[in-house]
């Protein structure tokens, strides 16, 4: 999966927010949309390990930098779900609706 991050956003801030968000999700006794059992396999990881951001170069326009998201090899489907339904909305809420954009996969 590829994303583009707005150039005004510091990637360090994004990674720190991913860690905070992940901690909040694990601390939630009744996380909405996820079962505790599903999250257990990922529990030892940090947010940035659940969905790691690897810089790929510039995005389609000069205002974005492209990143490849590498999901944790353990329970990758759950990690993907956590990224799509929890981490990404939370990052967009904090940094802006246009801060992180889906990029088409390279062929």
């Amino acid at each position: 999966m590829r994303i583009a991050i707005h150039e005004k956003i510091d990637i360090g801030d994004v990674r720190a927010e991913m860690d905070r968000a992940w901690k909040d999700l694990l601390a939630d006794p009744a996380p909405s949309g996820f079962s505790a059992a599903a999250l257990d396999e990922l529990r030892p990881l940090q947010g940035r390990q659940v969905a790691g951001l690897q810089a790929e170069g510039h995005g389609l326009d000069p205002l974005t930098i492209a990143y490849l998201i590498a999901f944790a090899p353990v329970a990758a489907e759950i990690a993907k779900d956590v990224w799509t339904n929890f981490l990404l909305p939370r990052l967009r809420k904090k940094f802006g609706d246009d801060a992180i954009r889906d990029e088409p996969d390279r062929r």
Partner: protein
Amino acid sequence: MAATPRHLSLAHRKSLASLALTDRILAEFHVDSNTDPARSFRNSLKDQIRLNKETLENNATPLDAAVRWLIDEASSTPNILGQDEGFDGALTAIKRAAASLKCIDCSGSICNGGAADDEIVATRGLCISEFMAAAEQARRASEHYYGTYSSLYREAGKPRLVFSTAMVIDRPHSYALELEVGGKTRFLQERSVRGQQQSFVPVSEVILQTRIRELNRSSVLASTYVLFHEFFCHAFQYLHPEDASRVELQEWDYFSEGWMDHLAIDALEEICTGKGAPDVVVTSDQLAAGKEVHLVRSNPYVENPAPHAAKIRMGVDASRETRRFLTKLLGEAEGREAYLALSLDLNLMNRSPEDPDRVVEDRHRVVNMVRSGLTTKVGKVEVCEALCDYAYRKDSLKFFMDIKAISFIHLSLDK
């Protein structure tokens, strides 16, 4: 997963509430925010927001306390008092309003940056009250118009309407305007299970986007028009027939962006003058701000026209001329009703799953045909006949088919 409203983060709402409250009161006191000392005060407030990002992100501080603190800090800007009597009075009122803002008066619970915040804001949202009120105006007005005038709406799947707010980094449009709000609508589906039966409820999530630190009074006022556009033009799109799924539009659609946008601004004006929808109130300031945006986005003759302005203009012209034609034919009241029914029905029609862009192309042909038929001196007789036929039958589907057939004839004659 159920579609729930999503709102600005607590930190962003602290900033927005202090700026919006300031601008609202400056306007009430007729103080121009671009002249000293109001400008100094606003700049100081924005500086406080920029410099105290971490303080504002501390979720342990409730919003009301943060707003009071920001206003107090900005009030200590040197040399702002004693220059302008109007501003001095406004500043006293700003401080009073900040002091009387109480999160506990909102929804009974106080936001703490957690997962429950979105629901608290959606229940009442005192901190974004003007946006919440604008969304409520647009929702009620659009439901009234579709419910009263559209015949297809009775058979269409009723959407669940969700209102969300979001912060954006870049200005959410490219119009030559200092407009710091924009809108978008997402189509979602919600699964509903009753006994053994499973069905899907269409959901339209209308999102008001805003650049918070750049927010100004005219943008807050124009948010009513932006939301009227989203609710009238998009929230009810593609709902008929009920069993067809709604697909996000790939192609840019100048029926909804032009024709329907003209209907939305007309509805805003009707409601402002007390003729549109009962129990919905739109102020003349909201109407004026909306008209300014509508004119810029549909005017291809300005220095830096909006992208697609010429196509939006075609849709606007076709819409206006259709209303004029039907009014001339049927009289003011009946002509208006026929125009509303035709427009709302056309907007409700879904695309064929096999050929999803087809209805968009067909609607573009309707816009082109009606516009060329009604606005050129060489008026096309067939278009007028199809509209006359529609006026007496009130059958939008038949009109749509007639006008498509006419356009095919003209296209083949042109070749």
